[in-house]
């Protein structure tokens, strides 16, 4: 009976797909993109080179199939250059292969978006857009939630919206569990996003190939301090052979335990040139509870756990639109709650403690577009992500290991807004003031090729709202002098970044960018937090120069 039911269900789906395939009334749209990004940093050269092919097939007026496949290579090498030595590191770990199905989805839409130009009662040309539309995408999709400020990523699931006049409702749900990209990543099997080390380490990646004799744990080396086994510590003894077998069997399927992201948005579009929206986003951690703790005999390595379990929920409000002619704004506020389970080591006992997340972030931006042939624009932006004075940042993971504190006030979203180019820090315990301007210096030239040349400059001022908390510069504001602990308010200021980007769309299908960025840290902040001399200037600016080329074919 059960088999019959399943058979019937799949038969219906199969028939539906066949029906759709036989109704093809147009030819596929095929294309590709070559992309190369090469950049030098203080001690490193990195390159990413990819080729993507895409296919878009309108099966009929309402159904579209889309897929994009990418292949390529990532490579980096660290170089040390002194008076006597010039060394470059090249190892298998420096490579990452990129074979991937980026996107693969079916899209159903109720009807095509209908746009028309009409004259209003004052004979002004008015653009009418019919928003009455229903659309659903399922498969491997790209989801952009809350203007991309909270979530902007690829996953397997569905995304749907419907609009009634100016009101739009959007629902989505997807998982990153089947994103196998990091499997081929020799460099660092990092996945986006990173809340805990499990997000990085759940893959049986080749870069974790350093297996010694003891292989009865997860996919790592028990002697390797980098990361360890994660068997549940119930009895404060090592596990029995049966337990080990059970947990080792579990590890094979556990790699699929990524995250589920789901949420909705309610939007009011184009009401007196204003767009308003409220949204909800849930981030659910699928790590098995058995893997949250360290192997009992390695209690001293508690730090090297997967970083626990991080479930978070976000409520966002966004408003954007026109203030006066040529002046636009964007405002976004997000409240975050949830639980952050950290490993706690009391010295005699090791356990997981869940901290309640209570945090928020803000983003406010003003943009002015000048009416000139060189198309100048000026933008002022303020971005704020709250912090916590008791938190430690460790390899992108937020840990609160002190049992006295029940809350985690650090803001952490699945993705972070782009904050500069040199360091690209995550928005957590950070306030950033950004001044940007763009200009097309040859905009007045008749030659179209040169008129597309664009210069973008930016100044970013980074501050730490919670002065005693960790930020992307790991050193805290506290320092020791003569054995006493001091706190210097000037260390709320972390540093300044200056960016100069030269962008040139030479042809319609060929773009080239030269990106230059330098981050100048606050001279009062020390690279060595144990220093006895807080006035020493042992910091170095961090710079990055990148050359990016993209070509569509």
């Amino acid at each position: 009976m059960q088999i019959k039911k399943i058979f019937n269900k799949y038969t219906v789906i199969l028939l539906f797909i066949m029906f759709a395939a036989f109704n093809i009334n147009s030819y596929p749209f095929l294309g590709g993109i070559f992309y190369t990004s090469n950049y030098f940093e203080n001690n490193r050269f990195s390159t990413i080179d990819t080729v993507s092919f895409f296919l878009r097939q309108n099966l009929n007026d309402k159904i579209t199939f889309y897929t994009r496949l990418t292949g390529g290579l990532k490579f980096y090498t660290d170089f040390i250059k002194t008076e006597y030595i010039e060394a470059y590191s090249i190892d298998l770990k420096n490579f990452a292969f990129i074979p991937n199905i980026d996107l693969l989805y079916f899209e159903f839409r109720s009807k095509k978006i209908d746009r028309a130009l009409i004259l209003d009662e004052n004979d002004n040309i008015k653009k009418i857009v019919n928003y009455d539309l229903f659309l659903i995408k399922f498969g491997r999709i790209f989801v952009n939630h809350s203007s991309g400020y909270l979530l902007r990523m690829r996953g397997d699931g569905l995304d749907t919206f419907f609009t009634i006049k100016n009101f739009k409702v959007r629902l989505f749900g997807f998982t990153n569990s089947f994103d196998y990209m990091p499997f081929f990543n020799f460099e660092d099997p990092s996945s986006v996003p990173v809340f805990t080390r499990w997000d990085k380490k759940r893959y049986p990646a080749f870069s974790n190939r350093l297996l010694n004799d003891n292989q009865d744990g997860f996919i790592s080396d028990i002697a390797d301090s980098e990361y360890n086994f994660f068997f549940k510590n119930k009895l404060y003894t090592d596990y029995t052979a049966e337990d080990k077998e059970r947990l080792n069997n579990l590890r094979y399927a556990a790699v699929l335990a990524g995250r589920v992201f789901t949420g909705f948005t309610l939007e009011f579009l184009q009401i007196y040139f204003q767009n308003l929206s409220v949204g909800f986003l849930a981030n659910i951690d699928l790590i098995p509870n058995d893997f949250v703790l360290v192997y009992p005999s390695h209690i001293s390595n508690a730090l090297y756990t997967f970083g626990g379990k991080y479930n978070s929920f976000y409520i966002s409000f966004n408003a954007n639109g026109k203030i006066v002619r040529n002046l636009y704004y964007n405002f976004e506020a997000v409240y975050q709650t949830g639980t952050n389970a950290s490993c706690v080591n009391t010295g005699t006992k090791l356990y997981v403690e869940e901290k309640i997340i209570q945090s928020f972030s803000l983003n406010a931006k003003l943009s002015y577009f000048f009416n000139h042939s060189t198309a100048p624009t000026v933008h002022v932006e303020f971005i704020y992500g709250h912090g916590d004075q008791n938190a430690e940042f460790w390899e992108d993971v937020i840990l609160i290991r002190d049992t006295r504190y029940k809350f985690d006030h650090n803001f952490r979203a699945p993705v972070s807004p782009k904050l500069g180019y040199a360091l690209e820090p995550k928005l957590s315990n950070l306030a950033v003031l950004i001044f940007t301007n763009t200009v097309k210096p040859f905009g007045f030239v008749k030659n179209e090729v040169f008129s597309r040349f664009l210069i973008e400059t930016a100044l970013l001022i980074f501050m730490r709202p919670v002065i005693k908390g960790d930020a992307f510069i790991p050193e805290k504001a506290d320092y020791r002098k003569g054995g006493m602990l001091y706190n210097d308010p000037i260390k709320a200021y972390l540093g300044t970044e200056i960016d100069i980007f030269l962008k040139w769309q030479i042809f319609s299908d060929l773009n080239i960018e030269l990106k230059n960025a330098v981050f100048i840290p606050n001279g009062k902040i020390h690279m060595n937090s144990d220093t006895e001399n807080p006035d020493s200037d042992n910091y170095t600016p961090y710079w990055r120069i990148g050359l990016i080329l993209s070509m569509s074919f």
Partner: protein
Amino acid sequence: MKKTVLIIFLIFVINFIYPNQGDFLNVLSEKKNAAFEDCITSFCYLYELEVKEDFNENIEMLKQKIKHFPKKYSKENLLTIGDFSVFAAQYINIKSGIFYMAGKNGRYASRELMIINIIPLYTSEWNKISGLELIRLLQKVDDYANKKNIQ
């Protein structure tokens, strides 16, 4: 629906001003699939050439204005987006797109027309064009040319 009404109105106006073109457009608008010959005739009209009965004569006349033709063509071939784009891109004198400049073929000509909103995005170069669609596209090409003071 609105677009169809607009095109019928255009045909009516053109018919009134240019009787020969009007006849041609009347017939064309009823075709389910436009033929390659229709494209040649249309561009002869756009270049204000004297349209002949013979297909080959029209081709020879058009060759004085247009350098690059699709590689394989014949009178009865059903018109594709790619073939149409080869003529349209040269008519509006497109000089962008590294691949278009290199090959001047239908595939990349159609990409260029997509960028300037003459052809809808993601339209395959192999798609066939109906008579009405061809009229609509010609109208867009002509508008673009007038806007840019081409021809």
